């Protein structure tokens, strides 16, 4: 087989991967455009494309509240978690201290922790502290799960930054904070960004805490609301409306993936490879 044909064969295989990844997405999008009885036509595509389901979803107070909760909670958790992780990872990368390896291993262990294990104690504590069904009640567990992950990702990035730059700044009379702010931060920005995206994905995706630690529109995020969504009236099958809502929740993810593909891959593989 010549070189050209071989290259085409790999691209054909690549096309199959793309088809694999997009097929279910295409299906839920198609379903969300089905109107009335079309939902039950048992075909892949609707006979007539309609925005009806999106109108239902956006008219629903439940969904609007859930969307507000999801955005607010996810963004707050992301900002706080990444800010703290940046400081922690900087310390881990720069300072030599006993148990450094242990801290990093612990970070990884927590990231792999079964999320549901924290639900019973948090459920009990939050009810006593009045944090049950509040934004903070969700932001705290999200942070505790994403902090270790961010520290892990960021410390891999920080290790790449040369020591000498910092020493040069110190010799020029910069304070430690100035060094961190003006020398390290610009260099670490791509890493910080990556950590932020991964954190946002976690918080946006969460379902376990979302259903367990909330009880009403006050704090329930979209994935949890989706599972309880019943449509405009109790008697109408909510299938198509759920599909439309599902598409809306997916929308913030798509541009992130499209724009930051390289960064996300680098972050996921822990900085072991350069995308």
């Amino acid at each position, binding site marked *: 087989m010549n070189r050209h044909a071989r290259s085409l064969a790999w691209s054909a295989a690549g096309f199959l991967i793309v088809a694999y990844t997009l097929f279910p997405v295409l299906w839920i999008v198609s379903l969300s455009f089905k109107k009335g009885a079309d939902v039950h036509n048992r075909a*892949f595509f609707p006979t007539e494309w309609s925005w009806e389901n999106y109108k239902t979803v956006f008219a629903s107070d439940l969904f609007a509240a859930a969307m507000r909760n999801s955005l607010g909670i996810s963004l707050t958790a992301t900002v706080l978690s990444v800010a703290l992780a940046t400081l922690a990872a900087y310390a881990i990368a720069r300072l030599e201290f006993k148990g450094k390896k242990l801290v990093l291993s612990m970070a990884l262990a927590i990231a792999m922790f079964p999320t549901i294990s924290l639900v019973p104690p948090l*459920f009990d504590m939050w009810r006593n502290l009045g944090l049950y069904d509040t934004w903070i009640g969700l932001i705290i567990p999200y942070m505790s799960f994403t902090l270790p992950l961010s520290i892990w990702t960021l410390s891999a990035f920080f290790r790449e930054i040369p020591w000498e730059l910092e020493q040069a700044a110190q010799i020029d009379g910069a304070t430690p904070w100035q060094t961190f702010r003006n020398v390290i931060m610009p260099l670490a920005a791509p890493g910080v960004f990556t950590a932020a995206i991964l954190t946002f994905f976690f918080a946006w995706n969460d*379902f376990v805490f979302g259903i367990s630690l909330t009880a009403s529109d006050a704090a329930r995020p979209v*994935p949890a609301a989706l599972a309880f969504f019943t449509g405009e009236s109790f008697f109408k099958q909510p299938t198509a409306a759920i599909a439309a809502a*599902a598409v809306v929740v997916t929308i913030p993810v*798509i541009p992130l993936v499209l724009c930051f593909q390289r960064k996300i*891959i680098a972050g996921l593989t822990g900085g072991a490879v350069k995308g």
Partner: protein
Amino acid sequence: MLLVTAYPMLQAVWLSLYSYRITDPASWKFIGLQNYAVILSDGLWWRAVGVTGLITVVTVAVELLVGFAFAVVMHRIALGRGVVRTAILVPYGMVTVVSAFAWKFAFAPDSGFVNSWFGLEHHDFFAQFGSSLFVICMSEIWKTTPFMSLLLLAGLAQVPEELQEAARVDGATWWQRLWNVTIPNMKAAIMVATLFRTLDAYRIFDNVFVMTNGAQNTETVSFLVYRQMISRTAVGLGSAVSVLLFLTVVLIAFVFIKVLKTDLSQVRGDRS
């Protein structure tokens, strides 16, 4: 960091020693290890462990195979490389609940296209244990294979090209090169990817909740915790199940790291 995870965990251990239901505050009583005795002597717990184990083994095995194939393609592809690498992140970024709904509706007898495509009339996939589990695994595999394949791709990139070349010169077939050169050289990446995915698959919850809600005996360990805790408000019992779940996960990680010698520092390319 430790405060927010370790403290609640200790709290869970402590709660698990009491008989306590929120709906019945008067029942608050220290009962020692009795909750654990109840759980471990109950078929419900063992069935949940069995189902979760089955899902974990099936999904991780399939993902290893498919993920490896994807990694090889992503490694070799020239034209369309960026497109494939972007597309592979779509399932990863998708909300699990959305993926669960997409697969559920696809297989559902009243709205799905699967039955009409395969000429199955009105077969209800969610009416039996086997087919329900099949759909749950499909959704899980679709959603998480990309993560697996990206970790494997990172491993693949670390296999020295010269070794491949040398083997080729010596007349090794494609299959021989795969088994004797590629796989031994990326063993660390394979082990790490398997460990991550095993622990992740073991806590499966979202898919089960959306698709069957635990019906047809598809209840997993995580789901059992949820049901005891939130639906039955049995704080003591729920905590005990969650402590047991945590211990199982620690055990799995221990086996991987100590017995199978998975080297975690490899993921980060640490050489020291």
